[in-house]
């Protein structure tokens, strides 16, 4: 069965493009816009990888990831956000909270490479 990726982003265009790309790469993708929807999706179909935005409507990505880790301790979490962090912040703070941080300016092919690095091929 194809590996499952859960996307959490409040922007429809981002969700659509990312879903299109990852589906094209052979992964099974569930896209949600809020942490509540993401939680339901996790219970329904546990993912192999979670890709989350930072700034969400009713929470933030890091908070959601922290709570999700209790249910999915071994699942890698990727933070994909438009907020550009300082290299030291990434090194000292984000690296302890997420498996991977990527700014949204990262190309899709590079995102694909990171996804493969984290969970392998589809």
């Amino acid at each position, binding site marked *: 069965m194809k590996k499952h990726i859960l996307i959490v982003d409040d*922007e429809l*265009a*981002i969700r659509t*493009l*990312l879903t*299109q*790309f990852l589906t*094209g790469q052979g992964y099974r993708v569930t896209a949600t816009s809020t942490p509540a929807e993401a939680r339901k999706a996790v219970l329904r179909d546990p993912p192999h990888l979670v890709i989350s935005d930072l700034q969400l409507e009713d929470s933030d990505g890091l908070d959601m990831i922290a709570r999700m880790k209790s249910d999915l301790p071994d699942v890698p979490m990727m933070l994909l956000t*438009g*907020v550009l962090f300082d290299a030291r912040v990434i090194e000292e703070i984000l690296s302890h909270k997420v498996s991977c941080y990527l700014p*949204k*300016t*990262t*190309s*899709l*092919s590079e995102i694909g490479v990171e996804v493969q690095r984290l969970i392998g091929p589809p």
Partner: protein
Amino acid sequence: MAIGRADLDREILDRNNTAAVRSLLGPDGGTAVMGEVRRATDKLNEEETALLETRDRESFRQARTIRWTVWAGVAIDLLLLAGCAWVIADDIRARRAAAQVLETANAQLEAKVTERTADLAAANRQLSTDLLERDWANQALEHQVRYNQVIINAVADLAFVLTKALNISRINPAVIQLTGREALELVNQPLASVAQLADPPGDTGPALADPMARALTDGYDLRDQPAVIADKLGRKIPGRLSLFPLRDQNKVIGGVAIFHVVALPGIPDRKTPL
């Protein structure tokens, strides 16, 4: 009428006339006549034999001719048959060769079509990927610009983005709200046309913009300076002005001026909740 001997003989010979023979044999029945008859018979036999031989020879020749003709016909037929067989075999060979060539051409064509189809499919996939990549880049850029704009717009103080010549290149909504001037009226105008540093007490010098110019030239911050800003009606609103150089790769390319309104005439201090 008496029949002459010669005539009688001829009659006997010609007509095989029995009566004549008897008349001849009757009186003498002689040996001479018999001899004559024997000679005539022998001659007759010889002539018949000659005729038969001639006939046999001709028959033989005819049969031989027929044989030769038949054999020649058979030979020609065989030759024709062989020729036809050769032509048919050659035609079959040619057809097989043509079929082989056609089959090879078809296989090559099919291989080329398969290869071309694969190329087109790959190009199509690449194109789709490129389009997706471009859409993603546009989306990321748009998101980034919007996010930066949201940050600037969220600042309640008046923000002016300046060129190094201290001309306004961008403002936040707070500027429009306070001054009543639209961006079109302010962009590309000197900051001094709307905001000025207040004269220090006792200073009569005119160069109010100089500290800001120097700050941008030398690349240092100018913080919390008393200043005034003029609205569309010409009212002077007092406040505090800070100027921060904009650096790009260690080069000052402009500045950001932040004007904090202290109090509007007749309006409480902006820090006080309304």
